[in-house]
């Protein structure tokens, strides 16, 4: 469904992504792991062009975009085919939980207001926050904010949801409710790419785990394989460290 070819990104001459190739199948759950500073977040941000890649091709349903020279139209198209969940939630601070979810439906998908609000309400109910529809982000807990962040991403019915360390900024007490919600989305076969340090989530939910280091995908495979018998010594070293074995 999504093909990424030779994605390259440098920051001031320092390479961050060294030609990433990645195919994502419909309904696939991909979890990206690896040491910090190895380009995991940059990969996600290049897929929806929050970061401008130097070169590469991203193809969604046969529609190829040369992302090194993307037109404004291409940029919008890519962003409307993807949705993004931010590490710091990044909820619209001037809008209520309900308005955060409805915003895209109204302004991007041009749904009539009433229809958009009804849909946003059903998403709020789905993520267990029906009673918070008039709360502003500042009045929500971290876990609630991130669930609204996921709700906002759900509203765009995008082909692929991109999660950039969705639980890293959360107090430990809120991590589980966010992971539970992500698991439910995974069970519904929502295609997603998740950058995370939650190894148990990777092991339990991923269809495929990518290990990245130095701007490259070093190794990938089903979680059983990656966690039990990784081939690459760098993967072995990383997992030994994070799993404290």
């Amino acid at each position, binding site marked *: 469904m999504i093909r990424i070819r030779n994605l390259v990104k440098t920051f001031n001459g320092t390479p961050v992504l060294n030609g990433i190739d990645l195919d994502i199948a419909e309904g696939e759950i991909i979890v990206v792991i690896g040491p910090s500073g190895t380009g995991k977040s940059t990969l996600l941000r290049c897929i929806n062009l929050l970061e401008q890649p130097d070169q590469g091709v991203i193809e969604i349903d046969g529609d190829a975009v040369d992302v090194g020279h993307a037109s404004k139209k291409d940029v919008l198209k890519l962003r409307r085919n993807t949705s993004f969940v931010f590490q710091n939630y*990044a909820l619209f601070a001037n809008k209520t939980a309900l308005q955060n979810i409805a915003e895209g439906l109204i302004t991007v998908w041009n749904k009539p207001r009433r229809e958009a609000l009804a849909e946003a309400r059903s998403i709020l109910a789905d993520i267990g926050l029906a009673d918070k529809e008039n709360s502003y982000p500042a009045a929500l807990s971290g876990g609630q904010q991130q669930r609204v962040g996921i709700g906002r*991403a759900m509203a765009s019915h995008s082909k692929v949801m991109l999660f950039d360390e969705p639980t890293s900024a959360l107090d430990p007490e809120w991590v589980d409710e966010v992971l539970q919600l992500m698991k439910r989305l995974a069970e519904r076969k929502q295609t997603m790419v998740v950058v995370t340090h939650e190894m148990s989530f990777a092991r339990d939910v991923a269809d495929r785990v990518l290990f990245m280091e130095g701007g490259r995908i070093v190794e990938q495979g089903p979680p059983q394989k990656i966690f039990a018998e990784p081939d690459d010594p760098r993967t072995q070293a990383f997992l030994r460290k994070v799993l404290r074995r």
Partner: protein
Amino acid sequence: MNFDLSYFIELIPLLLRYLGITMQMALLGLVFALLLAVVMAVVRVFRVPLLDWLVQLYISFFRGTPLLVQLFLLYYGLPQMFPPLVGIDAFTAAVIGLSLHFSAYMAESIRAAIIGIDRSQMEAALSIGQSPLMAMRRIILPQAARIALPSLMNQFVDMIKSTSLAFTLGVAELMARAQMEASSSFKFFESFLAVALIYWVVVVLFTRLQLRLETKLNRAYQR
């Protein structure tokens, strides 16, 4: 010292009749200045080629020269160069002059407020598929308004007071009336004290309004 209290008290209602003209200039000036300022702030934030440069030049000029000079240039100077402007009346010229002048200051306040909004707000708006301009309108500017409000209000207060310069163009406003009364009665102190008090009370009332507006705009940010 002989302060003529009864003259002073009788003068106030007389002067208040001219407050309307003063406030018309200030409020019209506010509307046009804000419109211009928002456009210029956005041009600067997006660094629109050429336009950004023009806006910087504009801001530099209108902040770098006295308002009185700008008003004279506009009302007495420009018609000499551009004959179609000969018919422009003093009130219109004053409103235009005030708008242009204060839009330069307001543009910088709004730009500073926009820059102060966390980058992730723009990224989140882009991520749901909004264009940068739509994100600006729906997400960034409403938040920037709250941050810019105190300094915009400062500039508006300054603008209310600066309408008094319009009397030099011959606009029959508050200050012009006070000047006329003073020179016919020779009661300068009473006349100018009365006009000073009127400006002061108006400014205090608008400051009250600002506090209410701040409370309203802060509602979304309460824990």
